[in-house]
């Protein structure tokens, strides 16, 4: 009976056994990408270049963690979509709050401006 349970467990885990090399590659990439984003600040890059680089490194790091470390790359799409699509709502909220913040800024500028 116990043997049966172990066999079942072994069968279950076959899907999440990945080569050690893959983990070390991702680990190394995360270190390098973090060093890059730190360097963006250290080098004092400004403007669009700074922002595109920071966002690029951030999204690459997030993608690597979710896909490999959290094994999302090997899950069925039914789970991936259920977890990864709802955060799109955050982007809508981001758009709304950007417009709202601009409006608040302009209002403060007009109403509280020094004479």
């Amino acid at each position: 009976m116990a043997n049966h349970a172990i066999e079942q467990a072994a069968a279950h885990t076959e899907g999440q056994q990945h080569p050690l090399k893959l983990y070390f590659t991702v680990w190394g990439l995360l270190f390098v990408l973090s060093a890059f984003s730190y360097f963006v600040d250290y080098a004092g890059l400004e403007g669009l270049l700074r922002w595109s680089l920071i966002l690029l490194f951030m999204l690459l790091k997030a993608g690597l963690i979710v896909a490999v470390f959290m094994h999302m790359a090997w899950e069925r799409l039914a789970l991936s979509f259920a977890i990864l699509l709802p955060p799109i709502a955050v982007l809508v909220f981001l758009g709304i709050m950007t417009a709202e913040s601009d409006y608040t800024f302009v209002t403060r500028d007009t109403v509280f401006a020094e004479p």
Partner: protein
Amino acid sequence: MAESALDSTRPDGLEGIVADWSSDQRAFKRVSWGKAMMWIFLLSDTFIFSIFLLSYMSARMSTQSEWPNASKVFSLHIGGTDLPLLLIAIMTFVLISSSGTMAMAVRCGYARARKATAALMYLTALLGATFVGMQAFEWTKLISEGVRPWSNPFGAEQFGASFFMITGFHGTHVSIGVLFLLIIATKIWRGDFDKPGRSWLKSGAGDYEAVEIMGLYWHFVDLVWVFIFAFFYLW
């Protein structure tokens, strides 16, 4: 325990989504309820941290005062020079390392390497505790410089509230993660996971899935830090 053997006729890809969700059974095939629930909890946590970061963004974009320069506020004075964001960079590397050791622990767990799994989880907990310790140091430094949730000497007043709220909530997550790592690692070290019978962490002998579920939480904490690092410290 989740059955891994899927019907070979079950389609993959987009057709698979329709088939899984309309199967009149559980929608998440090949995933145990524990893992599915952890993913759903992490989704809800994603929204919480998103809302914190969005409120920070709104405060920062709408204020008339100058926002404090994070590069200067979080610099360390070592050997006569100011190194910008040094402590934050070290904290980032510590947390990434802990994510790496956690991934190794999950792998060892599925290989049934009891002692290696426990040792790697203890190492992960140690790195997590180091992170929280460095965060406590950073808080102490800022508080001694006069940063409060309602005011600070560097610029816009909302800076303190955003900083303490966001990093405090993240630090709480790390601390809870450390506690759970210690609990699960100790149970594994004692061999509880190799004994037959069910408990709240396993469904039978050799069921190491709790390590992977713990890993999901831990990697998520690292994931949130990636976003905080980019938006709070590098903006």
